[in-house]
């Protein structure tokens, strides 16, 4: 296990270097003079020259890259052109908002997806099975930006049950401590705000959870069906063990590996989906941060935003890989 972990960590080095290279060359791949394009056609020559120097574009590319890389090692993500603030200082509130949203979404997806899959397998070919699997098929094909709009129309505009957008009640803003509002409101004992923040979370997290939920449900069902046909399950049932324990204890434990794989993969992909969800629900997260930066041609922010999300994505995949080794000792990593 230790040698596998070390090998897996070492294999990250080229991937992370590659990530930094792609993100680094992103700004240099802009057709024409990047500084001129960022500032627009009306910019003065002095302003263009200043920005060129600020971005380090007047130096050879390898020096630029090593400067950029050494900056990354010290946590320097560059400076936003729009706000003139260090990106490392302003990025956390956005990242916290995305992490909160993604966490809620994956919890919803796992809870409903895994249970729907289990019940479908348990009652195979029943009405529940058919309905759940048809819904899962539709869920996989659902454009989340459309689902988000539909949710807004039904639950916020027509039924008026939940807020249309945003992260908090604007008239009673949350005082940020960790910037994860569910935690902040609890720390401060503001349960009214906690409920308000939770209400704001429901629509975007359900929209974001839909595709992973559908995929998790399908994988759980097929994995459970395979395990439930095994001899040891037949033995457990023959011994008179209650079906609930047979399913949730014996079968699930052995069906969990493919489910875990897909959960890991979907957690990473949520970060991509968050960009769309955040745009629809005006959620002030990383997606919104990058989206606004694209509009403002704030390339350092786009670069850093993409790098941070990709880094988290890689780390989640690493975590899932290590988790397999811990859960299933039969897996041989050679």
């Amino acid at each position, binding site marked *: 296990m230790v040698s596998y972990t070390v090998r897996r960590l070492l294999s990250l080095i*080229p*991937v992370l270097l*590659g*990530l930094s*290279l*792609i*993100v680094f060359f*992103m*700004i240099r*791949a*802009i*057709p024409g003079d990047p500084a001129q394009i960022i500032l627009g056609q009306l910019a003065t020559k002095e302003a263009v020259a200043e920005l060129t120097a600020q971005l380090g574009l007047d130096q050879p590319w390898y020096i630029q890259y090593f400067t950029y890389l050494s900056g990354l090692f010290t946590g320097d993500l560059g400076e936003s052109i729009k706000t003139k603030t260090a990106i490392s200082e302003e990025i956390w509130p956005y990242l916290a908002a995305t992490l909160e949203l993604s966490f809620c979404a994956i919890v919803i997806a796992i809870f409903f997806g895994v249970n729907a899959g289990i019940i479908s397998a348990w009652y195979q070919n029943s009405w529940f099975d058919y309905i759940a699997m048809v819904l899962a*098929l*539709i869920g*996989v*094909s*659902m*454009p989340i*930006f*459309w689902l988000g*709009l*539909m949710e*807004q*129309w039904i639950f916020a*505009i027509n039924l008026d049950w939940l807020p249309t957008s945003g992260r908090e009640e604007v008239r009673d803003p949350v005082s940020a401590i960790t910037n994860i509002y569910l935690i902040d409101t609890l720390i401060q004992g503001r349960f009214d705000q906690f409920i308000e923040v939770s209400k704001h979370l429901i629509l975007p997290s359900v929209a974001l959870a839909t595709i992973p939920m559908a995929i998790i449900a399908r*994988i759980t069902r*097929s*994995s459970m069906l*395979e395990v439930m046909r095994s001899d040891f399950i037949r033995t457990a049932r023959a011994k008179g063990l209650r079906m609930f324990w047979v399913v949730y204890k014996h079968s699930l434990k052995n069906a969990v590996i*493919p489910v875990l794989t897909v959960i890991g993969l979907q957690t*990473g*992909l949520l*970060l*991509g*989906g968050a*960009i*769309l969800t955040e*745009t*629809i629900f005006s959620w002030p997260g990383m997606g919104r941060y*990058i*989206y606004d930066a*694209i*509009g403002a041609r704030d*390339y350092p922010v*786009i670069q850093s935003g*993409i790098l941070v*999300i*990709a880094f988290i*994505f*890689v780390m989640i*995949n690493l975590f899932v890989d290590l988790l397999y080794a811990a859960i299933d000792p039969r897996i041989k990593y050679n």
Partner: protein
Amino acid sequence: MEVSLNKNPQTPNLPEEDNAVSPWIEAWRSFRRNKLAIIGTCIVLFFIMIAIFAPYIAPSGINEQVMAKRLLPPSSEHWFGTDDFGRDIFSRVLYGARISLWVGFLSVMGSLVVGTLLGILAGYYGRWVDTIISRTFDIMLAFPSILLAIAIVAVLGPSLRNALIAIAIINIPNFGRLIRSKVLSVKQEEYIIAARGIGMKNSRILFKHVLPNSMAPVIVQGTLAIATAIIEAAALSFLGLGAEAPNPEWGKMLSDARPLLTQAPWTMFFPGIAIMLTVLGFNLMGDGLRDALDPRMKN
């Protein structure tokens, strides 16, 4: 001692190949039995027909504006209602099928060709060629795909063409990795070793023998990738990074419908349903093809 396998002396022992059915026919029979796959294929064919015959079916032109008929709800005259420019949404959804299917097919063709080529090279030649190509794939797959697409469009500039290029690029590693693993197993087959033994050129072995024998999973992946590509193109257009006005691309139509959510919700219903149905069709068809062509991939 002689053992005859022929139980019926009237019919001679036939060589096995004469009874064998081509794997493609076998796959077709299995596909035909899969009801969901047939439904998916029908949905896909339906949208292809719509795309082809849009100019003949659509009651009005793509951008025909009648300002007196702004934001009319669905009626017998305007089946899907009208938008804020008085344009018939039904006609625009029909024309939108052209754009979405075109982007889906073209981007997947691009990633399929490039990915297959790189995958074959990596799998067949191995060593440093494999290392470089596979590591590049790993790095590309380290980005959530839509994020990489956004990054590419942010660099190239927002347009439908650039969105198509971005989608093609982000899907290359999926095809590349798939074909690489297939080539790795195919190249160990005896007929490839024999071909090498008789002095056949590498390029001939690759394109005449390795490629045709690695195509089944690529066809499956290609069908499923069209579904993803259609959603990704719509997502980019929705974010304002793909199709530009007045293009009736479904994602762009949804983006235009956003401010009208309270006033005219029908402007958002139909483009969304069109995206969902098309994607569902390709997903069902892809699942059916997977079960028919490569049952091992089923789970």
